[in-house]
């Protein structure tokens, strides 16, 4: 069913739904900020000025300054780019791995399927944040390791999905034909099965984006995120929380950034799920 989505219908449904439309707008805003952020930011995100730390939001500093005197608006803008980059890389990495594992399991079936699915179950038995924390703790604090840790926990979603696709496609006529004419299994996999997985994976990816960004923020909050002075939102919220409630801007603005970003993806994702759920039509 997933493979037979028509994009035009799809877009129409999304745009009609007020909630998912809002989501789309938010995501668009995020992408714009990620793209132009560094060019429109009023200050340098790294220059410290601790004498002027935690200044109130004002005309000079619209979001105020943080505990090292850096402009928060600037850092939030730079952070957009970081969040988008991380999320995209995670999706690409986990999407690739997950899809590969999934189609192999689905297509070859039998023992391989069993083993791969049991391995998937093992990964699914952990709450994602905890598994990501374990991996991040093992690898050390850095942005790269955060990406790896989160990818480590996200691939299972795509594996399940891809497996379903492979199972459905396995019995199709043209696949039978290809097999009969002597094509190798791998060729069939990559030429026939894989392309059909791309749409569902992208759609599932959209739905999963919100969760990914939250896990990254969670890792940053606990202490496994990017190293200073990188302006990653989760780390900024974690740093800023020490100065609540008086210098609330250091914590609240990065927090709102996370919130609106995830809200955007969640709203869009909700709309997508509505479309996929036959009961909604």
């Amino acid at each position, binding site marked *: 069913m997933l493979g037979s989505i028509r994009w035009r219908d799809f877009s129409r449904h999304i745009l009609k739904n*007020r*909630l998912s439309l809002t989501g789309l707008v938010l995501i668009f805003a995020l992408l714009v900020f990620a793209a132009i952020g560094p060019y429109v930011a009023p200050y340098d995100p790294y220059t410290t000025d601790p004498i002027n730390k935690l200044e109130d939001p004002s005309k000079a500093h619209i979001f105020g300054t943080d505990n090292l005197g850096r402009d928060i608006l600037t850092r939030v803008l730079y952070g957009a780019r970081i969040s988008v980059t991380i999320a995209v890389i995670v999706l690409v990495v986990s999407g690739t791995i997950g899809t590969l594992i999934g189609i192999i399991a689905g297509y070859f079936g039998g023992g391989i399927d069993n083993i791969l699915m*049991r*391995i998937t*179950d*093992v*990964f699914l*038995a*952990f*709450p*994602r*944040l*905890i*598994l990501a*924390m*374990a*991996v991040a*703790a*093992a*690898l*050390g604090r850095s942005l790269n390791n955060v990406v790896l840790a989160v990818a480590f926990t996200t691939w299972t979603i795509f594996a399940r999905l891809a497996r379903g696709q492979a199972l459905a496609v396995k019995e199709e006529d043209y696949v039978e034909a290809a097999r009969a004419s002597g094509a190798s299994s791998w060729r069939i996999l990559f030429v026939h099965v894989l392309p059909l997985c791309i749409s569902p994976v992208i759609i599932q990816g959209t739905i999963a984006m*919100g969760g990914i960004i*939250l896990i990254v*923020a*969670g890792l940053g*909050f*606990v*202490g496994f995120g990017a190293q200073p002075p990188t302006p990653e939102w*989760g780390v900024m*919220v*974690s740093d800023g*929380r020490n100065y*609540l*409630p008086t210098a*609330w801007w250091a*914590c*609240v603005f990065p*927090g709102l950034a*996370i*919130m*609106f970003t*995830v*809200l955007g993806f*969640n*709203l869009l994702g*909700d709309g997508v*799920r509505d479309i996929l*759920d036959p*009961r*909604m039509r």
Partner: protein
Amino acid sequence: MIAYIVRRLFWMVFVIFGVMTLTFFIARVIPADPVAAVLPSNAPDEAIEKERARMGLDKPIWVQYGRYINGILHGDLGVSIRTRQPVMEDLIRYFPATAELALASLLIGIVIGLSLGVVSAVKRGRIPDHAGRMFAIWGLSMPAFFTGLMLVILFSHILRWFPLLGQMPAYLRRPPHVTGFLILDTMIAGNWSLVVTELRHLVLPAFTLGWLSTASIVRITRSSMLEVLPEEYIKTARMKGLRESRVVLKHALKNALLPTITVIGLRVASLLEGAVLTETVFSWPGLGRYVVSSFLSIDFPAVVGVTVFIAFLYSFCNLIVDLLYGYLNPKIRYT
């Protein structure tokens, strides 16, 4: 049915084993020395070596793994390097507080989620529908620690409606230990004013976590209700002259509850994740904080023990939910 349960249990054991192995090896990859974490910066090297030997960390990795698996089979999850207590004992100490929090959160999530879901379904497409769904999705869009902090500042610091932190006021004594669960023990001791105080302390943290759960409950309730509302028997009930609210609540909702149960099972994982992020904010002496300190200090046995425990808990909850669903839904037959 029995065969199904047995099969599920078998796979659960396999999965737990895989979880243990995976966690064990993740924890051992780290190049840090957790023993050094327990001692301050000016401790001389000999002191460090003493502690290492005392902890048994100087043995080869296969030996450690073997001992660990052997231990688990005997109910021994190892000894925490940081607290020097058996991990199992630490878990038993901290689990009740998190369990209480999780249960309360689930309750709040269900109550709010069901209410909003019903409203959304009944007023489909109109403002209450959008507002309800927005509220639910909003809860899911904030990191739990952020939600917690904001709620504390608004409801505790500014409005003074609820206490700031902890399970109960500092200067009051805990009731005698019977079950380990604070509210239960307080009830058993008959101290009802303390029970009310404890419930007040529970509200903000439980709402923080509960809010996370409302989104999926709203969604599933709404879609189930939408599926059920056009059905024949609903129309019949209406024609019989029953009040709309009765129709909705008694008949439609009852049938929509079934899929909600499956969703609840999935929420357990996110409740545990949420606990990890919010217990620090509320000084809640539960498993979440234990997880954070174990991971940050790379306390191998605690990390592995807690992770295994959580995975087990999660699998167990899923099993219960599956069985419950199968039991409640006569349409499902397990072969």
